[in-house]
């Protein structure tokens, strides 16, 4: 199973791909206000790519509770443990 750092590396690649920006380095505190193009459509892109990469499914209530990338990493970590 992937550890948190491995999840972060994969999630970072997803962010770089979705925003077409190889300079993005995600941190736990980062949120939509820190990335200019992180709008509702980009959010769907991130969820689709994350579900595919980590082979998990997210519920709308789980997504609604995400406040930043740290929460996203927590959620993916929890999903992978299930």
């Amino acid at each position: 199973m992937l550890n948190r750092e491995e999840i972060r590396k994969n999630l970072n690649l997803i962010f770089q791909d979705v925003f077409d920006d190889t300079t993005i380095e995600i941190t736990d505190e980062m949120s939509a206000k820190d990335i200019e193009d992180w709008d509702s459509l980009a959010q769907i892109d991130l969820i689709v790519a994350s579900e595919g990469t980590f082979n998990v499914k997210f519920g709308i209530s789980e997504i609604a509770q995400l406040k930043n990338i740290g929460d996203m990493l927590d959620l993916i970590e929890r999903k992978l443990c299930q």
Partner: protein
Amino acid sequence: MIPIKQYTYDEITLGQVANFAVTITEDMMSKFRDISGDVNPLHISEDFAKDKGYTGRVVYGMLSASFLSTMAGMYLPGENCVIHAVEVKFPLPVYLGQTLTFTGEVVSKVDAYNTIELKVSATNSNNQKVLRGKIRAGVLK
């Protein structure tokens, strides 16, 4: 008039396919030219197009792509569609009078957002792919 499909999100399955055929006419080209204001000679001058190495006037790529709206809005999912994003590529030119067969296949569903993704393509009568891409569409409840 094409009967509009009325799929709900739950009725749509991975691998589901829709297809239809369209023949590109002079009338379509004229209307597209008038709406878009694109009077590039590649689309309106036979001589110019031939001089550039094409066999005739090239159909507007975005005219071919406009049928992706038909795919999503009329066929899959149909009435409950709201298009979020379209990606399209044009591997070969389309010429006036050609009949294109459009195919859309559901390749992913995102339950959290009631959203589907279609892999789409259009082929000419020689079975050559002239358009390929993706549509992401929300399915209204």
